[in-house]
């Protein structure tokens, strides 16, 4: 039974006070799926299954389901590619956030994760470059990067971002929230319009 405190005149929340604002935020932003945790390929598989079932329940078309799954694989792959072990002993949070929202005819897949602050400039430059390319230029750039023999992490990240832009057929939306000199929170959104599918 909740107690009413005389001073505050409200019901004690037993530490659950954050739950309703959390729900409200998700509802107001049309979030249909949310996950926070470590990302690995097992997680990717489970997320795809859950989203597949959810979209099937909502009678979403197979084309949309497939497109959304392809974009989610790419988003999550980029997140675990960014899981930098060098930061692990600096007290940063290695978990990632995955959100899927739907507003009328557009799905958005949003990821949030920490990246080393020293990489912010480079990631921003990479995304700006990708966003400035048209469909044919993106295709050409993708093939160039695919053929590059250098398979370091940076090369894979660029290839993944190009692939994400091509699959979503929209510019990639991003934002960085600087936290300290070591790490910065990186938010990335890929949109999918169901109208064009």
């Amino acid at each position, binding site marked *: 039974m909740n107690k009413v405190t005389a001073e505050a005149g409200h019901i004690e929340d037993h530490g659950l006070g954050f739950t309703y604002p959390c729900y409200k935020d998700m509802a107001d932003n049309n979030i249909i799926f949310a996950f926070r945790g470590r990302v*690995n*390929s*097992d997680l*990717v*598989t489970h997320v*795809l299954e859950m989203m597949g079932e959810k979209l099937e329940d909502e009678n979403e*078309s*197979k*084309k949309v*389901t*497939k*497109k959304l*799954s*392809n974009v989610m*694989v*790419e988003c999550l*792959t*980029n997140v*675990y*590619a960014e899981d930098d072990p060098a930061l692990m002993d600096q007290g940063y949070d290695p978990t990632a956030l995955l959100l899927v929202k739907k507003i009328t005819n557009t799905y958005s897949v949003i990821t949030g994760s920490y990246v080393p602050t020293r990489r912010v400039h480079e990631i921003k430059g990479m995304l700006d470059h990708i966003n400035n390319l048209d469909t044919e230029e993106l*295709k050409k750039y*993708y*093939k160039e990067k*695919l*053929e590059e023999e250098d*398979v370091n992490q940076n090369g*894979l990240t660029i*290839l*993944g971002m190009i*692939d994400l832009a*091509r*699959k979503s057929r929209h510019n990639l939306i991003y934002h960085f929230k600087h936290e300290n000199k070591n790490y910065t929170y990186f938010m990335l959104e890929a949109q999918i319009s169901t109208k064009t*599918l």
Partner: protein
Amino acid sequence: MEPLKIEPTHKTPKVYFAPQENVFELSGRSIPEDSVGFYKHILDWIDDYGKSPNSLTEFNFELEYFNTSSSKNILELLKKLEGIHESGHNVKIYWYYDEDDEDMEETGEDYKALLSVPLELKMKVY
């Protein structure tokens, strides 16, 4: 030559390379964290097979999803098949994609544009 058969998992594809049966198939999902480690065995096997290949090798790719690092390894596999073709042996590659999956179709087109070995895109209709 001994066949290479690897059972599929929820994150790695089925590998069924059986020269005696003339069946070569890579199918399912390819989203391992360590794709280089997974594909090394496959690429080594293809190197050996290339020393004495069948007169006709028909190779089927029927992938559901794959991640970025797998895409590099798949290109490497395709280039090895191209090498077998260029050494005078007949190689045909079939790239299957689901009728609802424009991305897998587009990826097949990208690979086709990068290779000289015959690669045919085949739509799976349900």
